[in-house]
């Protein structure tokens, strides 16, 4: 298998704070990678640095290669073509990911047109309706004219999946796509996501702090802690080969089987004040 995405010694700093510390891994086409870690472990920064959408204050060192070409591409226009066209993105908070004064249709049309220059409104509308059907939004044509506040969180997250799929990207980066949703909605959104990804043979990079998600979709698991990649391995090897931190993370997962127990806590692995140094 050829590597779809190669990340080599990628470090990102925000002023004195290091968000990513020399991350390296290769990501094969068709793989479904789940990146787990606690909040603040640098997971989201990783996704945004692949897309080249980190804030200007970020200092980036290291290399990201997508299909052999280095990212972010110097030329803005070429980079904009990669975003959405080759790499899709799903944001963690559906409630704030839509402009409140624009209709859902407008959001989808704009996403479509960014990837299909010269397309007509009719084509954009057809694509939008097809994708809303795919993510199980009923009465799609009518709902194109609705505003984000008229949608529920779960529906918005499914619309965001549709918008990310509209350019038919090879890789989909989903940054905590279910965190902001309640438990029952989480499952249905995740199912929609997993189905769409497998139907299209897409690669998926799913960022989460919820290990329950791992079992549902992953072919590979990466564990991050304190801006470092602690472990990267196929899902089959997870229970046996796990790093002590990964095992601790697995144990800290609540489950219906063991009521009445206190969840174990995870000891801090890092020396005090790690984020203040270079």
């Amino acid at each position: 298998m050829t590597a779809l995405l190669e990340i080599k010694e990628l470090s990102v700093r925000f002023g004195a704070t290091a968000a990513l510390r020399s991350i390296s891994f290769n990501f094969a086409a068709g793989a479904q990678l789940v990146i787990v870690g606690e909040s603040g472990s640098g997971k989201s920064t990783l996704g945004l640095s692949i897309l080249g959408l980190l804030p200007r204050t970020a200092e980036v060192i290291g290399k990201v290669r997508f299909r052999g070409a280095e990212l972010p591409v110097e030329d803005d226009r070429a980079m904009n073509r990669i975003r959405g066209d080759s790499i899709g993105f799903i944001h963690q908070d559906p409630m704030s990911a839509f402009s409140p004064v624009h209709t859902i249709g407008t959001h989808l049309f704009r996403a479509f047109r960014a990837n299909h220059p010269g397309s007509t409104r009719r084509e954009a509308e057809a694509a939008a309706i097809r994708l809303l059907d795919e993510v199980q939004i009923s009465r799609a044509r009518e709902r194109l004219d609705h505003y984000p506040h008229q949608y529920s969180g779960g529906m918005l997250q499914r619309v965001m999946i549709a918008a990310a799929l509209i350019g038919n990207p090879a890789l989909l980066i989903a940054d905590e796509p279910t965190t902001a949703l309640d438990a029952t909605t989480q499952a249905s959104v995740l199912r929609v996501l997993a189905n769409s990804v497998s139907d299209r043979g897409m690669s998926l990079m799913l960022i989460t702090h919820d290990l329950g998600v791992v079992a549902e979709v992953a072919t590979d698991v990466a564990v991050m802690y304190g801006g470092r990649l602690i472990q990267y391995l196929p899902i089959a090897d997870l229970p046996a080969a796990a790093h002590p931190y990964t095992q601790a993370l697995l144990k800290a997962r609540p489950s219906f089987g063991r009521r009445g127990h206190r969840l174990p806590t995870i000891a801090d692995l890092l020396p005090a004040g790690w984020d203040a140094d270079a």
Partner: protein
Amino acid sequence: MPKLIASRLLTSILALLGAAAFAFIAIRVAPGDAARLTLGAFATDEAIASLRVEMGLDRPLPVQFWIYLQDFVTGDWGRSYSLGQPVSQLLASRFPATLELGLYAFAMAFSAALAMALWGAHRQTPFSERLPQRLALFALGVPQFWFGLVSLMIGFELLGLFPGPVGRLPPGMDAPGGPTGLFTIDALLVGEIGTFAAAFHHLILPAATLALLPFGFLYRLLRANLADMSDASFALVARAHGQSRLRVLLKTLLPNAIIPTLTASGLIFGQLLAGSVLVERVFNWPGAGALVTQGVLTQDYSVVQTFILLSAAVYIVTNLLVDIVAALIDPRLRSGGLQR
């Protein structure tokens, strides 16, 4: 939504009553004699005594306030003793000049503020951030009447690029006979290009002077709105869809940033009205503001009182209209209140 409008209507009426009460107390109840304020320092005692009766100054205060309100609402604003005309007629005849000046000033202020805020938000260089900020600091800190004088000293006296303080048209040029009273528009309507050019030329300096305060204010408002939102997730998501930075700024962020500035319309009208009082005097602009200054200087206060209370009424009514318009165009309010 009818409920929303009803409650806004009620608060607006209360605010109007409050404003009228304030003006009434400041001018009528204060130690100065309202009849003498109206008739001027040289009026005879008999004239003052008869006006006191006419104005109802011999009656109890609540009755006086009621009469005052009635007169204001029905447009019975008294007479100017020095000009010998009813205040309503005077203001109506002077209003088009002030309106035209205000419209140009607003257009200048808004377009400059918008351009500066967008430039800063798009380029994000130290220069593109600082230059507009300093311009706004200057615009908010410079006394408008002084800036007007300096612009005349440089633009007219030193460089000869602009006309002197002669009002709306060069001496000897006739007003275009159009329906609106706005010379630039009337001139175009009747096809007098020369008159249009002259009227426009005479507008530039006074309108730019009057635009200073609203420019500084609007720029800061737009910049703050854009800055609040440039971190918004929807901007990031739109970029992740492959839309360019400029496109996201203009199509997604800008509409979100402009809608809240609507709510400042009342304030901006107030700034323009108050500014016209100072600026029109500098440029000898024959508008309502100059009438007010003249009234103050000749101690002929009937026009002044009316103008002041009218400006408050304009502010309140504008705010009411803006709230209604905002309810109509904001999708969250239009579809029956916030659902979440």
